[in-house]
């Protein structure tokens, strides 16, 4: 199978869906000729024209509001939010308007909107271009949230998002845009709400979202060298969350570490860990460990920034300790 980058996978997903459905369009800052700073949308304006690949002023609340209105009235916008950090600018339009319109109208109106953005630190981009804010929107009923962890997931999840009649926020890991992975030439979709078991194991379950999937896979490799058999699960979407696959795994392994690049406090790791605690408590042999971004603004200095994000070594160390029966307190 051919391998393409995550950036190319996203580009293909958008192009295929725009060819399939004329009501799909792309809107955001520098999405046309510039192709975004990450060059994810390069070439689309040449094929689809400026009526369907729309460059906007730097006005996130305004163009998200416009996309919400366009979605309510017969089109399917894909909105590009250049950095996940800019979500704070669009919270009213996303959370008060898009998320609630279907419910508030008693099911009469719908908002088939896709908001593409990104997450991920260690790019030396400072505190306002490095956050992983997916937990924030996953908190809001009415929004769906997808976290692709490779080029394959990015394409399949985005195509599903575009066809979904609900507002979907999809976070791509900005450090992964150039990472290549096998992606079929033939069309495929990845359904929401289904976790993927990436590696089966019997000693400990590692749940890793988005950027943390690779961290967990590497940790599993490290653990295998020491005779510990880790199972790795990628939830793929956190709203909806496929908790059944996670619970089934934890009931088997009796131990779990949840790893996500959002802040630890009140985040995705807290949600998943508490569900494990509520629904698999009697199967557990150790406390559920949560590893996430440190609860600090992302620092600029490389010497500091790298400390804020979970590493394969850190995950593996936690796993060794809980498997050996040590009392572990989360960092």
């Amino acid at each position, binding site marked *: 199978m051919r391998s393409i980058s995550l950036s190319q996978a996203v580009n293909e997903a958008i192009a295929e869906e725009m060819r399939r459905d004329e009501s799909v369009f792309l809107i955001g800052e520098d999405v046309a000729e510039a192709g975004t700073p990450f060059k994810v949308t390069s070439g689309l304006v040449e094929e689809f024209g400026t009526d369907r690949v729309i460059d906007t002023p730097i006005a996130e609340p305004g163009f998200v509001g*416009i996309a919400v209105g366009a979605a309510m009235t017969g089109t399917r916008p894909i909105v590009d939010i250049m950095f996940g950090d800019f979500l704070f600018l669009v919270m009213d339009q996303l959370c008060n308007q898009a998320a609630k319109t279907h419910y508030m*109208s008693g099911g009469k109106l719908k908002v088939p909107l896709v908001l593409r953005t990104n997450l991920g630190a260690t790019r030396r981009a400072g505190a306002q271009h490095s956050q992983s804010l997916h937990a924030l929107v996953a908190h809001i009923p009415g929004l769906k949230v997808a976290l692709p962890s490779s080029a394959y997931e990015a394409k399949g999840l985005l195509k599903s998002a575009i066809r979904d009649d609900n507002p979907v926020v999809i976070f791509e890991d900005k450090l992964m845009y150039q990472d290549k992975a096998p992606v079929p030439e033939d069309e495929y979709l990845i359904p929401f709400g289904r976790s993927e078991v990436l590696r089966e194991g019997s000693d400990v379950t590692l749940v890793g979202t988005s950027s943390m999937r690779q961290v967990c896979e590497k940790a599993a490799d490290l653990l295998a060298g020491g005779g510990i058999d880790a199972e790795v699960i990628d939830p793929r979407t956190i709203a909806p969350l496929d908790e059944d696959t996670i619970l089934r795994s934890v009931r088997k392994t009796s131990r779990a570490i949840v790893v996500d690049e959002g802040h630890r406090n009140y985040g995705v790791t807290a949600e998943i860990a508490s569900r494990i605690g509520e629904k698999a408590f009697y199967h557990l042999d150790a406390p559920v460990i949560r590893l996430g971004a440190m609860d600090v603004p992302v620092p600029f200095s490389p010497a500091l920034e790298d400390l804020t994000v979970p590493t394969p070594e850190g995950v593996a160390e936690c796993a060794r300790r809980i498997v050996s029966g040590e009392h572990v307190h989360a960092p």
Partner: protein
Amino acid sequence: MPATGKINTESYMRMYRQMVRIREFEDTANQLYLSARMPGITHMYSGQEAVAVGICEALRVTDRITSTHRGHGHCIAKGGEFKAMFCELLGKEEGYCRGKGGSMHIADQLNGNLGANAIVGGSTGIATGSALSARMLGTDDITVCFFGDGATAQGIWYEVMNMAALWKLPVIYACENNGYSEYTRTDEIASGSIGARAEAFGIESHQVDGQDVLAVNDLAARLVERARKGEGPFFVELMTYRFHGHHVGDINRDYYRAKSEETAWMEQRDPILNFGNWLSEQGIASAEELESVNAEVRADAEAAVEYAFSARFPDASEVGKHVYVEAS
């Protein structure tokens, strides 16, 4: 007011009736609140009827509007029915939104009403997007964005006006300046000229007497036709007045608005009384004919309220429905 011809009798009488329907709806809703028979609070449109009616009478069913927290008038003017509206206000299953929206979220998509909005300025983006999609889908439907003077302080309005002007979208921004931003005089929250805000984006800007339904309708009809031809966007400031407080519970309001001012507007600038008098002077409708319209509307409202009280509340199973669109 412009000279009349009998040819317009039907539309004049329709405008009169629509304004009376709004006033009657609001008076009824106010009584429901004051007698503690309605849950929550609501915001009265009384006094501003000529704005919603003058504009919506220039629209087709497929043209769209976005509305505000003070939205009953827009809903009625765009074709809304009393029964579904009172049911919504009372949280009943047969309400426009199955009781899940309430007064501040009434939407009536079949008549092109994309919904009231409880965030001040919150629907300016939605209206602009509705205009964008109409053009993308190749229709000549236009969108009217109703909002108040208070919303002119919100940043998103400037952002979307900029894009509407850049992209020449078929949208009309209708600013109902009723003189008060909630409990504060507009001149305390808006510096300079409101119309000049739109002009700064190169948007043709108008100001009209919002108490004169014919003046509003005449201007709206011209702008709507031009917007259909791609000459938009447009901005209109409609000078009007809120007869009640910010909401039904805002009763003791001497601290921000003098009783004498309210009385003057109600006695001299009531859009329904003035239009009724004009219809009589012009020999279009006698006082008796107008009174019979009023009586019919009153009976409709009474019947609708009675219906709404006896209607069912949504089943408990409804609480979890419509969070997401079910996959088809």
